[in-house]
């Protein structure tokens, strides 16, 4: 038996398309202990979905090892599928079935006994906010409601592990919280292991561990707190009256490490808050830019993510690899 809930070692997945080999996963290793909440983040096309699919045995792997609960992804895929709840990123539930019929269908193929069904289905429907829409066809639900139904269906068999590929894509902020509360409860009650791919950095922040994937590789694998510590300096946040001018100004200032935008606010990374804060205020004033609420904020995953990816891109370019993306190399 493997002590890990999810494990991958030197995993490689290549797709052959267009006379090219696309290396979607390039030697990835990760371990998720039972009861952990593991968040996989990374830019578009980094290979998150592919990783999830290979681990579940939905795609074959080119080389390396992967397993869930000690079952090999390729050889024991049915054992894995019995114990795991999965939501695909671009999923769809059978549209001609109603909400209730969908729940019953997934209960049926997971061999959930009828007493259990009677108990769990109403609970899950209530959680998904779909109790009043039980008889509506899944195809006629709104985008977010479909996703919530999929979430409910993926939990019907009380899985030990859930692998969720952007589970809250299109889900509204209130429901998103409720969903995470539910996952938190399941984790506390049953030691549910959660593996989640997400673009929501506030969700990543809720994970016990976060992996940052970049071009098929895991470049960071640590707790959110430690990842945020990798980021140098402190972050000052403010809302300028003239956004573009303020951004340009800050970008050119001494001692400013990085400037990011967040909504209508600017996030300015500095080494020394006590020294730089007055300087920035003065500079803004000299340009006639007023601002609101200039304050130091805690670095969040959002800032960390952007900063890390930027640095990664720069280092790739410095390595002289320039335009050659790793996945575009290797013609057949």
């Amino acid at each position: 038996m493997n002590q890990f809930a999810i494990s991958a070692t030197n995993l490689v997945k290549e797709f052959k398309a267009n006379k090219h080999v696309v290396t979607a996963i390039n030697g990835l290793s990760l371990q998720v202990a039972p009861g952990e909440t593991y968040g996989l983040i990374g830019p578009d096309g980094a290979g998150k979905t592919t990783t999830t699919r290979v681990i579940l045995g939905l795609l074959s792997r080119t080389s390396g090892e992967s397993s869930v609960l000690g079952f090999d992804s390729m050889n024991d895929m049915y054992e894995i599928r019995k114990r795991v709840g999965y939501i695909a990123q671009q999923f769809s539930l059978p549209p001609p079935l109603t909400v209730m019929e969908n729940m019953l269908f997934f209960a049926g193929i997971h061999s959930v006994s009828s007493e259990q069904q009677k108990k769990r289905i109403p609970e899950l429907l209530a959680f998904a906010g779909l109790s009043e829409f039980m008889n509506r066809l899944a195809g006629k639900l709104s985008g977010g409601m479909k996703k919530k139904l999929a979430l409910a269906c993926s939990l019907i068999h009380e899985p030990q592990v859930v692998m969720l590929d952007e589970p809250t894509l299109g889900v509204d902020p209130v429901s998103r919280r409720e969903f995470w509360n539910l996952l938190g409860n399941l984790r506390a009650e049953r030691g549910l292991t959660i593996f989640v791919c997400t673009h929501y950095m506030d969700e990543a922040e809720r994970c016990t561990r976060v992996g940052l994937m970049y071009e098929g590789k895991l470049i960071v694998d640590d707790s959110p707190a430690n990842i945020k510590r990798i980021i140098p300096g402190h972050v000052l946040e403010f809302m300028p009256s003239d956004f573009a001018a303020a951004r340009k100004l800050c970008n050119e200032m001494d001692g400013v490490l990085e400037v990011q935008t967040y909504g209508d606010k600017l996030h300015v990374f500095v080494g020394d808050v006590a020294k730089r804060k007055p300087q920035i205020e003065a500079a803004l004033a000299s340009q006639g830019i007023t601002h609101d609420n200039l304050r130091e904020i805690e670095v969040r995953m959002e800032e960390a993510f952007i900063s890390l990816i930027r640095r990664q891109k720069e280092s790739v370019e410095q390595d002289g690899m320039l335009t050659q993306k790793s996945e575009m190399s290797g013609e057949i």
Partner: protein
Amino acid sequence: MQFDFQRLGALMRKETIQILRDRRFIMLFLGLTFVQLFVYSYAASRTVYHLPMAVVDQSQDPTSRSFVQALVNSQYFDATMYLDDQSQAKQAIDKSQVKAALIIPPHFAASVDQHSANFLMLLDGSDQFAVRSGYSAAGLVAQNFGLQMSAESVALTGAMPSLSDSLPINTSTQILYNPDLNDKWFVIPGIIGMILQTLAIEQAAIFLVRDREWGTMEQILATPVRQLELILSKMIPLSILCLLAFGISVGLGIFWFGVPFHGNLFLYFWLALLFLASCLGLGLVISTRATTQFEAETSSMIFMLFGLLLTGLFYPRTGMPLIPQLIGDIAPLTYFIRISRGIYMKGVGLSFVWGDALILVIYTLIVVGISSKTFKMRLD
């Protein structure tokens, strides 16, 4: 492999709901059955009206004129030219000026009175439709006149000689089972097979591809569902529908079109089921290749065309060049048509059709084998 009936039940319930909710599909399904049966059989009776006809009346008496008039009145013929002798008539057919030529010998009226009248009908052998309907129409009119007809088909210069085997001279066997030379009789058992093949191949392919296109496949694959369960859950409801269509078409064939069923219904049913299995298997193979419903539909259309052209449904295979014959061999319909005609029309037993039945068994094993190898429980 652990087969689980609860899972199969859940999957089948889903498929059944999907079928029942898809009103368009049901309409299409029934529509296709009816439309194919009616259109093909009526079209296939291919009775051609108003054949242009040359008349060589060497008798020129009231009886001969009234006979010509009777043929024209029957609507099957139009007397478009009057010629002097048989060789001119032959030329007219060769030049495609007319499709038929009527040659009435001298002293026609007298021979009619003596009940020994004779006439010759020349028919354009390159036009099978013309031959058939001209032959039977002239025969009917002649019968009313109490005449003895001798018919001959004229091959158009350069026309395919192979078609000559469907000339009246060669139709003796058909006439045996189809005394009125009624094409419906000949065609209906074939169309029943055609309907089964079209529905089964196309829908089997679409059923699986649709899940992939909707994106439901990935979600279902991530559950413990097994390959066999997944396939059966789609094939069982579809088979029931196909058998329904089969029942309807056999029923209509017997009671609406009045084509008497001579054979053993029980045997017919089992062999139809075997044929169905081979078609479903073929549909499965297509579905493993196709990624969109459109692709699946197009590929199954090809089999429908094979069905129309190369399986012997309308055009006899015996006259075909080797290549089209071999292509026709790919379609399971080729074998079932022979079985169907044998049992339905001639009332033969298994001892006569076992060869074709065996081919279908082997066929089924091969396609099911291929599809279970290529149908992956993965996305790639």
